[in-house]
């Protein structure tokens, strides 16, 4: 019992620290990319920025309804099946990848339903469009994940990581890695986590909700990105595999932040896209065909090796 409680505390701590670091990085690095200094109220490089954002949310009355509460619960539940190290996992099960994907879909659906209660037609249309395009970018992600599953013949995170002890999956599936990265980038772009003063600010969910409820909504949006980046590191880059003397947990963190920073920079170097037809075109023209090709090649390989036993 004490062991489980300890694990829960560790997990919560990791999530909160991660949220803090990513908020700070998103603010500071984007500021430097634009040759600005960024948030600078406290002298020491603006380290209190994430707190100040959080307290700003708290200063309003909490606008929590049932859906936001569910969102909050599921945002934490998703981490209970994902292993952060060999022993650091709350629920150890065989098909943890399946469960994580299911939770991701639940979060996305709840994200919509919390906006369905709004009284404004415009806001609902915009938020539905946003979620639709996010789901549209999830198709390549799902295809690539099935490719990885076919290669490793397992549905658990732990087995996938363990099977990469020699070579990472990115060597077998470079196309899959690339398309997943691009999809995550465009999903990140959809959430617009650090943009202000634009015309969508009037019409989208960013003006909807207040107080703690809004904070939870934002947290769930961050969480979707975190889970996707975590999956990217686990499925393609070997997860918490040790590298010589470097510990596995450290390696996981390094890879995670490396991908986060790459996505952050790429997000800044592409202009704001609010044309949903253009988003669809980008997906249909570039990302989706590549992932389909990747999936078909992997499937053919799988059939040849495992069903006909040719290779």
């Amino acid at each position, binding site marked *: 019992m004490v062991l489980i409680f300890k694990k829960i505390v560790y997990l919560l701590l990791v999530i909160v620290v991660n949220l803090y670091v990513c908020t700070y990085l998103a603010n500071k690095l984007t*500021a*430097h990319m634009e*040759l600005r*200094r960024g948030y600078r109220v406290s002298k020491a490089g603006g380290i209190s920025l994430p707190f100040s954002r959080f307290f700003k949310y708290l200063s309003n009355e909490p606008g929590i309804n049932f859906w936001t509460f569910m969102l909050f619960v599921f945002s934490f539940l998703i981490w209970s099946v994902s292993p952060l190290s060999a022993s650091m996992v709350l629920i150890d099960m065989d098909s943890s990848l399946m469960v994580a994907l299911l939770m991701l879909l639940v979060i996305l659906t709840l994200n919509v339903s919390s906006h369905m209660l709004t009284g404004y037609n415009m806001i609902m249309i915009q938020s539905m469009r946003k979620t639709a395009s996010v789901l549209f970018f999830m198709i390549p992600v799902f295809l690539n994940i099935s490719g990885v599953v076919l290669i490793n013949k397992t549905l658990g995170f732990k087995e996938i990581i363990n099977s990469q002890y020699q070579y990472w999956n990115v060597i077998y599936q470079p196309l899959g890695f690339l398309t997943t990265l691009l999809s995550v980038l465009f999903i990140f772009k959809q959430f617009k986590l650090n943009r202000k003063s634009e015309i969508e600010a009037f019409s989208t969910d960013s003006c909807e909700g207040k107080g703690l409820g809004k904070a939870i909504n934002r947290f769930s949006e961050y969480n979707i990105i975190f889970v996707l980046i975590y999956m990217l590191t686990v499925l393609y880059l070997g997860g918490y595999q040790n590298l010589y003397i470097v510990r596995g947990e450290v390696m996981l963190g390094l890879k995670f932040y490396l991908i986060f920073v790459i996505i952050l*920079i790429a997000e800044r*170097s592409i202009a704001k896209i609010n044309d949903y037809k253009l988003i669809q075109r980008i997906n249909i023209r570039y990302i989706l065909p590549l992932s389909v090709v990747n999936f078909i090649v992997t499937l053919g390989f799988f059939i040849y090796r495992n069903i006909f036993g040719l290779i």
Partner: protein
Amino acid sequence: MVRLIKNFFIAFANIFRKPRTVVYPTEKIIIPEGSRGMVHLKLDLDSLDMLCDGCGRCQKACPRDCIKVRTIVDEMGREVLEEFSLDLGSCIFCGNCVDACKIRAIDMSYRYQLASSNREGLRFGKEELVKPSGTLRDFW
């Protein structure tokens, strides 16, 4: 597509460049020479008297009527400057008063921290207008 990759590296390189933000109270941009700041009354360097004789040309030239000049006759029978006041609330920093002055007794200084919390703080008498500014100008 190549451009996107190039833009990625430009954004990446910007991280390591020096930020161009000027954090105002601690850092300041040096104002170039000839820039128009607050009106400043010049002093005669030998006698440390005010050069202004109160002819009132600047008062006439001011399009916003923010300069007020008044002279009195002292006991020696000379006409001397009694009052020279500037209302910064309506000053537009046009520099017409400097052009109008025949004896070059006023110029535009480089004082620019002029905010005040009340209207009275924006009215300057001749004692304040004589004070020199604390910052240096840019010479190149």
